[in-house]
């Protein structure tokens, strides 16, 4: 093989980094901040995110578009361009600090140790390259194997992600496949070199509803078989509900609540989480039930308001929320953290909600019909954006 590959050659034990510990968490993210320098100012897309991910576990990251969840996953992997972007904080992968590594050093991790699946396979697969080439490419680059063996591996991979007639599909272009098949191909590409960590960035959003569950199930099966850790990024709590071990809810670049999945659904403390949970359609609801939407839109990342970033859209909001940003407070369950001064399901929260409702009732009688609240307008035009 060419000397280019020698660098990535496997040693005798088969492990790429022989000194990598087998114990301890796979990924530790500490106070990661990512800002974009724009002509109008610095936008803090990710603002101080920390979490730990154990081997073989799944972390769901949930948030609206613009909450920074996509930037966060690309930031952890080091995939963002360098120019006009400031990245801070530490990312420790298998005990090694990787956030300061250069792209040339990261290449040993990309594809081989950690991989990513993107939202829309239509745009994330190269339209002018045959599917087979796109799979064998990383195999040939990371592993010291022959072209024909790489093709065999690719065919086997295609089979394992349940693509029918894999040998034939290898010679096709992405546009010749259906949406679901395309996403299976991107999964096959991501899994090719057996990564330990997989970022799935909205892996089912662009797919037909009927295919979504199949693709998610496939991901789960593969994760169990390979003992992979997965970071599942989505705007849809329903997607992560049965599949993540832990869920982090992001809002305006911050984690606003993080908890084991069961806890999050049953003892949510952050009003934003509550709103998200209420926006999931339930099977036992009668049809044509109006879903709750969250009025308003996320704040500007360039000059965010002081205080809690969710305050302008919050049902529980008090004056304190507008002035002071709440820190992450531990909840009663281990691993539960949230940012809120008046948490849902607590006496303070209840009192805050009642106070707001009383004032709203007074305001409604005092105000004339002409002074319709501006937020109501914002709510209607932002609602289509909720889903994207």
């Amino acid at each position, binding site marked *: 093989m060419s000397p280019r590959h020698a660098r990535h050659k496997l040693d005798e034990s088969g492990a790429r980094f022989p000194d990598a510990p087998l114990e301890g968490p796979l990924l530790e993210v500490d106070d990661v901040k990512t800002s974009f320098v724009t002509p109008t100012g610095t936008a803090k897309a990710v603002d101080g995110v920390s979490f730990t991910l154990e081997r073989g576990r799944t972390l769901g990251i949930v948030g609206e578009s613009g909450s920074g969840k996509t930037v966060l996953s690309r930031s952890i992997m080091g995939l963002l361009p360098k120019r006009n972007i400031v990245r801070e904080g530490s990312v420790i992968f298998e005990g090694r600090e990787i956030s300061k590594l250069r792209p040339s050093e990261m*290449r040993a991790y990309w594809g081989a140790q950690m991989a990513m699946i*993107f939202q829309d396979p239509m745009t994330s697969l190269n339209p002018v390259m045959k599917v087979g080439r796109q799979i064998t490419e990383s195999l040939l680059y990371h592993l010291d194997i022959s072209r024909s063996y790489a093709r065999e591996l690719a065919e086997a991979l295609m089979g394992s992600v349940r693509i029918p007639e894999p040998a034939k599909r290898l010679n096709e272009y992405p546009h010749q496949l259906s949406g679901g098949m395309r996403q299976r191909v991107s999964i096959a*590409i991501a899994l090719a070199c057996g990564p330990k960590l997989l970022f799935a960035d909205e892996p089912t959003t662009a797919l037909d509803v009927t295919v979504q569950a199949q693709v998610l199930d496939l991901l789960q099966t593969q994760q169990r078989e390979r003992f992979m850790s997965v970071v599942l990024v989505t705007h849809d709590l329903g997607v992560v509900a049965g599949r993540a071990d832990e869920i982090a809810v992001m809002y305006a670049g911050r984690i606003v609540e993080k908890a084991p999945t069961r806890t999050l659904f049953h003892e949510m403390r952050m009003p934003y989480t509550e709103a998200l949970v209420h926006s999931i359609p339930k099977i036992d609801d009668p049809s044509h039930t109006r879903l709750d939407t969250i009025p308003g839109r996320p704040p500007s990342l360039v000059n965010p308001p002081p205080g809690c970033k969710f305050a302008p859209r919050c049902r529980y909001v008090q004056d304190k929320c507008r002035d002071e940003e709440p820190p992450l407070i531990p909840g009663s369950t281990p691993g539960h953290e949230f940012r809120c001064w008046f948490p849902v399901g607590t006496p303070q929260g209840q009192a805050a909600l009642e106070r707001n409702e009383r004032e709203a009732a007074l305001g409604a009688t005092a105000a004339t019909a002409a002074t319709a609240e501006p937020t109501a307008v914002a709510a209607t035009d932002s609602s289509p954006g909720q889903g994207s």
Partner: protein
Amino acid sequence: MRLIARRLLQLVVVVILATFIVFALQKARGGDPATAVIPFGSAQQRAQFNKDQHLSDPYFVQYGKWLGNFLQGDMGKTYNTNQDVSDLVKDAAPVSIQLILYAQVLALLIAIPAGVFTAYRAGTKTDAAINAIAFGLLSIPAIVLALVLSYYLSAKWKIFTTPYVPLGAGLSEHIQGMVLPVVTLAVGQIAVYMRLLRSDMIATLQEDFITMAKSKGISNQRVLWRHALRPSSLTLLTVAGLNFGTLISGAIIVEVLFSLPGIGQLLANAIVQVQYPMLQSIVALIAIVYVVVNFLLDALYVVIDPRIRHARSAA
């Protein structure tokens, strides 16, 4: 198949229209070509000339006759020396084809790496510097560059002094003679192609599939050349095709300035000597070549972007 049929139709329309325009111009001039060609001839000689050239026939008959002859490979004769235009064209064509081909290859050899590099480094000082140079090159008219190059490199420093030599008569002499004309013709193209590729490539580099390719851990070079270049080269191709007419205009100037015995030289003579049959035939030939080149580029399009096959057949 439908694409081929459409292109064939286009070929016919363009060639007929193009030659008819030249023909109509000739007629619009009015007067008597015989007077222009043999100003001191007797009335009898003029009448004979008109008869030989079928100039007394009705216009459409004249045009039809010319077209019929042209399709059979007969491009008529020159007025003054009575040579077959097709023979002249046969001798001159290789020179022009070489000139254009070399210039095009040279331009692409420089423009593609420069475009890829500047797109990859978009917004940096190197990018700005290369762009400024490209802009300067773009603004040097061939006529100016030819004069500067031939003064310094051949008259003053005597580096390239060989006149044109056919390829068969010695490779090194052939190259020696072609360097200045080819460089002159290529310089403007370099800048056009580079800028086009750069802007398309910048757009491509922001696509998800590029981040995806990066996330596989393959080398930067591979991401740029294998993943990004091909989908970024479509506009380049289109413009290269449309540009072909400009390239021929440039080639005519370059041939005249460097005394290359090509089609451009023939055309210049045809224009100066008011030789309509020759002019008309050469214009027809160029129009055919233009359409054929664009057709070939279309075919290349399909090779480069597999999606087009489906999109086109659906449309």
